[in-house]
């Protein structure tokens, strides 16, 4: 009972003290740091959560659903029932090649039959006539009608409203199909697409048992339901079936989206760390300023326990108030941002999950406790004798203690919210390196500055002296500063890297047309047609169609994959079931890169054995290595070639690319056609009509819609990355201010003393400038070292980019940091220069 009363009394006392401290403004600095930190963390995590969901939707749109089962055989109908029970939306599709007929004309088309709920995500791009205005529709064709690629109209010479035959049935063409959302990056799908209703499959009788087709179930629903359903389906995936999830794509736009998501996750993580630094710095200053107060209270009879309780209750109260306020503010900020985004780049963000409501709050409280508890623990040990002898500070807290406590809190947080162990490790390594470097540099500075008399160098020497004299307090300050700069640099470097990468994907003059089947006899006239229209003729690439039959004498289908289903599955990868496009050239295409072996340039044409360079991912899939003998079947003629190099290929480059590039001459006397890609703007479209009429055998593929889709995505993610960077830079600036403020008292006192002793204002101002710029410069160099390490790890392990040095940053960051810290620092300590020394010395 007495205990309870005592606890209550302590609580009341700490509340009273809290009120008084608050009124005095002492707590406000800490509260502000906490509030900003929690607001920033909350809004960033709300934002990243919603963006993540938006990107996932995008990715789901391109995949056709949140979850997709694909197979080369008809899929189990039970799965559809199960999906219905799990309250998921499901769509069934079947893709196959078949012949479309109109009067005497035949066309091999790629038909996709879809059930009624198609598409689950996004919309189908359509037009009412050839070259008509495009519009979107969120459904598939109704039974009896077809939506067809413009090429179907050209090749069959029909129009919207006409009838064509597929299989045993006659259908009416009701619209022109420009792009369905889940077509994917399959630009080279030569056969024009026809979209039909799934019910019509039975009528047309095109799919018989054993027919070659690609069957899919597309599922959409809540995240948890999808995850559950995925777990249900996974064990049922026998050979021949594949399970695909949204957000897992690593090619083309899928890669862009997944990288953006990783960038967002990283941003959220760095924001939390920045917040932690700000809170840690503010807490340190606060607890230092409480030394006198606790000494007096101890003198007046407060026990250590009471002191500890008082401060713990105060901090918890503060965390609670700032937590609630910051969370609400954070929510509000991201709402504004989301609305702005919706208006500027037409990106509608889905609602957030519940987690972000907690992230900022928990982050704030955890970090506050992690950084505040060690100093508070010390605070209770302030000797009451300090009231008589002011110099008695409590034993300094071991730096590593605070660091590990704060670090522990951080790791917990990061793991809690990102579940990305690797990110945590990368940052840990970066931070530790910075600390070690910092200690080494300070030690080194002390050593050489004494040895070479750097402190004799006029004002610069004086500035150095000041730093050296207070090296302990500077170690902390500089660490915080270097960390802040490092985090900002990491995001800045990544941003530059990603944006470069993305903008290279779609240059302004990106080709928006592919032309296939250009006969060797037509090449000259084809090029001439361009020149006549004042358009420069595109380069033509020779192409031979062939099938890979043997690797080192082993038959691919029979021996390499004895399981028939597995062979079918490999074929469904697309590289073996169809004929491959083979080409030859002596000069390595611009966006190809040799990853192993040697490019066959300059190789003798007469050499008996042909040489071939293989695309590296295909080589990996098929287990092809250097010096392997590949055997091809080209129009019935066998051809053997030795693998002399493996290449990486940028498939998204919108220029013709080939899995197999032979040495020139190797494919002589084989049936060759030419292929090319070129750009035609809207006003040059008449050239297209001309080409279609002049060369009826040439297939021209328009990919404007695909490019536009990718462009929109890139535009959106670029804006997002920029916004997030700006967000973090602002947060970083706040932290910078907090860091400089952290030893303001000491600076004010020192400045006042120096002025009392006769230092001129000008002298002090210069000294401040030099001291702060040295501080920023040094922290900048250290930050760069850490940032290089962290980005190298991130590039390699998370973003799939090749690591490299960032020289411009090495120059820019330290100089920028030096200037920034000098300016901001000088504004902060302006009082040392402007107020009278008397005023400053009198103030506690």
């Amino acid at each position, binding site marked *: 009972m007495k205990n309870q*009363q*005592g606890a209550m*009394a302590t609580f009341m*006392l700490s509340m*009273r003290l809290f009120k*008084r*401290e608050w*009124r*005095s403004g*002492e707590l406000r600095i800490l509260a502000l740091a906490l509030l900003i930190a929690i607001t920033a963390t909350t809004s960033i995590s709300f934002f990243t959560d919603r963006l993540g969901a938006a990107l996932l939707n995008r990715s789901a749109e391109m995949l056709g659903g949140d979850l997709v089962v694909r197979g080369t055989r008809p899929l189990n109908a039970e799965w559809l029932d199960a999906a219905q029970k799990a309250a998921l939306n499901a769509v069934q599709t079947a893709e196959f090649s078949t012949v479309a007929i109109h009067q005497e004309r035949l066309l091999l088309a790629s038909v996709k039959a879809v059930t009624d709920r198609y598409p689950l995500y996004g919309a189908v791009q359509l037009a009412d006539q050839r070259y008509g205005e495009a519009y979107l529709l969120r459904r598939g064709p109704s039974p009896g009608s077809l939506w067809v690629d413009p090429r179907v109209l050209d090749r069959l010479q029909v129009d919207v409203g006409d009838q064509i035959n597929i299989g045993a049935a006659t259908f009416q063409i009701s619209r022109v199909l420009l792009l369905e959302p889940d077509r994917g990056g399959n630009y080279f799908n030569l056969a024009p697409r026809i979209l039909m209703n799934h019910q019509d499959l039975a009528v047309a009788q095109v799919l018989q048992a054993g027919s070659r087709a690609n069957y899919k179930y597309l599922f959409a629903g809540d995240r948890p339901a999808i995850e559950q359903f995925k777990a249900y389906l996974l064990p049922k995936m026998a050979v021949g079936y594949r399970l695909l999830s949204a957000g897992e794509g690593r090619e083309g736009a899928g890669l862009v989206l997944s990288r953006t998501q990783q960038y967002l996750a990283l941003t959220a993580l760095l924001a939390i760390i920045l917040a932690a630094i700000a809170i840690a710095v503010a807490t340190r200053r606060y607890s230092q300023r409480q030394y*006198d*107060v606790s000494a*007096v*209270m*101890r*003198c*007046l*009879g*407060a*026990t*250590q*326990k*009471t002191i500890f309780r008082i401060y713990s209750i105060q901090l918890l109260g503060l965390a609670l108030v700032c937590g609630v306020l910051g969370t609400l503010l954070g929510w509000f900020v991201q709402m504004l941002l989301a609305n702005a985004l919706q208006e500027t780049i037409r990106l509608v963000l889905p609602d957030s999950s519940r987690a972000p409501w907690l992230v900022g709050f928990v982050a704030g409280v955890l970090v506050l406790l992690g950084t505040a508890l060690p100093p508070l623990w010390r605070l209770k040990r302030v*000797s*009451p*004798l300090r*009231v*008589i*002898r*002011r110099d008695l500070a409590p034993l300094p807290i071991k730096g590593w203690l605070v660091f590990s406590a704060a670090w522990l809190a951080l790791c917990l947080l990061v793991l809690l919210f990102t579940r990305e162990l690797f990110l945590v490790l990368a940052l840990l390594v970066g931070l530790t390196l910075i600390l070690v470097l910092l200690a080494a540099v300070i030690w080194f500075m002390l050593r050489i500055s004494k040895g070479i008399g750097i402190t004799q160098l006029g004002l610069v020497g004086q500035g150095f002296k000041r730093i050296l004299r207070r090296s302990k307090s500077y170690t902390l300050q500089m660490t915080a500063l270097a960390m802040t700069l490092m985090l900002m640099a990491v995001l800045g470097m990544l941003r530059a890297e990603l944006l470069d990468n993305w903008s290279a994907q779609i240059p302004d003059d990106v080709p928006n047309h592919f032309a296939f089947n250009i006969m060797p006899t037509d090449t000259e006239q084809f090029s001439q047609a361009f020149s006549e229209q004042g358009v420069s003729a595109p380069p033509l690439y020779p192409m031979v169609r062939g099938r890979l039959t043997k690797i080192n004498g082993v038959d691919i289908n029979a021996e390499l994959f004895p399981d028939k289903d597995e062979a079918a599955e490999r074929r469904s990868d697309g590289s073996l079931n169809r004929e491959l496009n083979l080409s030859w050239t002596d000069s390595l295409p611009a966006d190809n890169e040799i990853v192993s072996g040697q490019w066959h340039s300059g190789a003798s044409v007469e050499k008996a054995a042909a040489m071939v360079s293989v695309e590296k991912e295909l080589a990996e899939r098929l287990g092809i290595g250097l010096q392997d003998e590949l055997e091809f079947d080209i129009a019935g003629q066998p051809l053997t070639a030795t693998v002399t190099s493996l290449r990486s290929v940028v498939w998204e480059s919108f220029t013709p690319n080939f899995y197999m590039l032979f040495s020139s001459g190797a494919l002589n006397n084989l049936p060759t056609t030419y292929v090319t890609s070129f750009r035609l703007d809207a006003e040059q479209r008449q050239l297209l009509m001309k080409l279609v009429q002049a060369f009826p055998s040439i297939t021209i593929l328009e990919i404007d819609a695909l490019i536009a889709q990718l462009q929109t995505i890139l535009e959106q993610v670029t804006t997002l990355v920029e916004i997030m960077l700006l967000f973090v830079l602002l947060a970083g600036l706040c932290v910078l201010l907090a860091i400089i403020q952290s030893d303001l008292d000491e600076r004010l006192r020192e400045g006042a003393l120096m002025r009392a002793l006769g230092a001129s204002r000008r002298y002090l101002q210069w000294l401040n400038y030099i001291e702060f710029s040295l501080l920023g410069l040094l922290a900048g160099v250290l930050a760069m070292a850490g940032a290089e390490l962290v980005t190298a790890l991130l590039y390699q392990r998370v973003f799939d980019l090749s690591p490299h040095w960032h020289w411009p940053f090495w120059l820019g960051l330290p100089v920028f940091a030096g200037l920034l810290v000098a300016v901001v620092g000088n504004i902060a300590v302006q009082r040392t220069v402007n107020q009278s020394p008397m005023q400053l010395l009198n*103030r*506690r």
Partner: protein
Amino acid sequence: MEKCESEAIVIANNLGKEVASQFETLTILAGVSLQIKRAESVAIVGVSGSGKSTLLGLLAGLDEPTCGEVSLCGQSLSKLDEDGRALVRAEHVGFVFQSFQLLPNLTALENVLLPLEIANKEGQKAHVEDLMKRVGLSDRQHHYPSQLSGGEQQRVAIARAFVTEPTILFADEPTGNLDSATGATIIDLLFELNQSNNTTLIMVTHDANLAQRCDRQIRLQAGQIQS
């Protein structure tokens, strides 16, 4: 805690304090023994560095001696830990310091109330208001220390020291930061309250006049009592 009834209210036995510096061990106090009776006023005098403040700190239980022991109101401080000593201070001891040691973020009244709040003794409003009146600060209760003159701040400190009606009042150079006129009024106030409350007053001072007004003077030289 029982009320202090013993005759000798402060007893120091063979008190010594050494401080180890980087190169040598400094002896600040050695073999100090003394007894102070209830309601007695004692001045500890001596030149700078003679160990006056150290002795005060040891007697008040703010610091631990290297050897010897102190007992306050019959309680041996060396047998108590820091928290035990804090409770003794809360119960029996008041302080007045040279540098006032008011909490800057609390008003005059709140500073005075603080010891009561720490000891969880509330509801003594009349007593506090009376005390404020007696130190002449009735109309400045809601001012912050920075808004008060040195003399006024020391009055607040005195009111804070007396508010718990301590048995012993320790004063460390209470006039050291004040001009002589203000100092005189502060001293008058201190003695007046000392007498009316029957408090034991132990004061460190440089001021010969002030020392003269005490019942007894203890002179320290080089850490030892001069007899």
